[in-house]
């Protein structure tokens, strides 16, 4: 098991955001977290990447307890994240943004940079444009490409489809599939449950800080309760 979250509780002040979430991600999988706004999806990702401290529970990566490890050190272990709202550095060019992903790396970057530009030809055309002047879809590409530059073993994607046009959403999802095919494990948080479930090996349904259901993606796609709650009820 590559990543395991064991019964974590996370609080914002006195408010409990996560109430005992447990989940597992195996090497090579695409796993999704779906659920309504405020269910705790983003908080779960942020806790895994070390942006939020946990009150109790454990995050294990490759069997090692990383619950207390500072966020910037988790990147080096192989946890890459494209954050909610994309977090593109607005005053840096596309290329500088991508190089930020390699901030802690000392090895040769050319091959990885080429690969990101091959996955996102749009970025290759705009290497020297500032991140802050790019469209939402392009910023999403920067955020994913930048996370890939950290050479992650597991890639955490927070709402990659948010605010994008339907065509672009399809494109982003097929790129996620491609990234996974090339050997990167993916943990995906999505509001767009339909697309996410189609793509996922397994998925967890979150409600108000708890896991209420977990099953293979396609099974959840057919689950009447999930359909009613998250897929428009057909």
């Amino acid at each position, binding site marked *: 098991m590559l990543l395991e979250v064991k019964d974590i509780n996370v609080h914002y002040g006195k408010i409990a955001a996560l109430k005992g979430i447990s989940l597992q991600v195996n090497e090579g999988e695409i796993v999704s977290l779906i659920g309504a706004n405020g269910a705790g999806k983003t908080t779960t990702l942020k806790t895994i*990447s*070390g*942006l939020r401290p946990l009150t109790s529970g454990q995050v294990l990566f490759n069997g090692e307890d990383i619950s207390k490890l*500072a*966020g*910037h*050190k988790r*990147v*080096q272990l192989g946890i*890459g*994240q494209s*954050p909610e709202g994309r*977090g*593109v*550095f*607005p*005053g*840096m060019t596309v290329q*500088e943004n991508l*190089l*930020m*992903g390699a*901030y*802690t790396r000392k090895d040769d970057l050319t091959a990885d940079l080429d690969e990101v530009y091959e996955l996102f030809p749009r970025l290759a055309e705009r290497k020297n444009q500032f991140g*802050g002047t790019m469209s939402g879809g392009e910023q999403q590409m920067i955020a994913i490409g*930048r*996370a890939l530059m*950290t050479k992650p073993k597991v890639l955490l994607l927070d709402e990659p489809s948010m605010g994008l046009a339907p065509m672009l959403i399809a494109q982003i999802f097929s790129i996620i599939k491609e990234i996974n095919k090339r050997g990167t494990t993916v943990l995906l948080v999505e509001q767009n449950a339909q697309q996410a479930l189609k793509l996922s090996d397994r998925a967890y349904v979150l409600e108000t800080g708890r896991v209420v259901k977990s099953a293979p993606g396609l099974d959840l796609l057919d689950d009447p309760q999930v359909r009613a709650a998250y897929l428009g009820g057909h």
Partner: protein
Amino acid sequence: MLDDFLNQFLPSTVGGLVFGSIYALVALGYTMVYGVLRLINFAHSEIFMIGTFTSLVVITAIAPTAPFTGLAMVGVLLLIIVLSAAVSGGAAVLLELVAYRPLRRKGATRLTALISAIGASLFLQELFALVIIPWLTGKPGRNQQSSLRIVDRDTVFTIGNAQVRTDHIIVIVAAVIMMIALDRVVNRTKIGRGIRATAQDPEAAVLMGVSIDNIVRITFLLGGTMAGVAGALYLMEFENTVFNVGFVLGIKAFTAAVLGGIGNLRGALLGGVVLGLIENWGAIFLGSEWKDVIAFTVLVVVLMFRPTGILGESLQKARA
């Protein structure tokens, strides 16, 4: 009146550039810390003060019998600049460690940090007045302390009726060198990319493997170094200092940072020079006792029309 102005315009311009260079160097520290932490580091003025006293002590220790010339002058200048930069840089790092980091760890609000900054400023002033200055100089800590002259006031060349002296050139050239160096560090090095990333989006920076603590420490070190150099240049030029020398100068430098667009390195530079020039030009009409009034009036007027300062962009958006 106009005659006066024309007569004094060029000399005032030279004086304004000298003051402006020092404001700009100090302003860089305010603007960098603001860019990274969104904190107005009010104790930065004391970091500058510490720089002036470091130079004072060094100059007193080498006790020149006369102002230096040639290589000896360059050597002494480099010595006071390097030592003041080192001591001020170290003091700034220590300040962050003691006054700000514990609050950041606990997730304190920005207002709390601001109060801590004001407290640290007063603490350092009083610490110097009561303990350190008497110990260093053997004189009462609240007195003006004057320094020996290390650079002669020789006129190197004249522009119209303005005499440009050796000391003017030293201040301006040293300030320009430091600013170019800082600009390089921020825009061309890995540490610089870390600083810009932290300023633009701290959470995303962590996800890139940037240690925020480390970046904050380096930011204070760089800002403190600049203030230390400013302190050395100030002492060389004005030949005196006092425990609260940083107070008005610090507020002016902060004004310069806001005037240029806080968070923006080039804005701090521009704001410093503009402020130095305007207060010197204004003083021709109103007398030099009006300098401070002029400086702050300019600030209020500029902010009324351009609330984000002259260059407008902040460190989050700008390249530098």
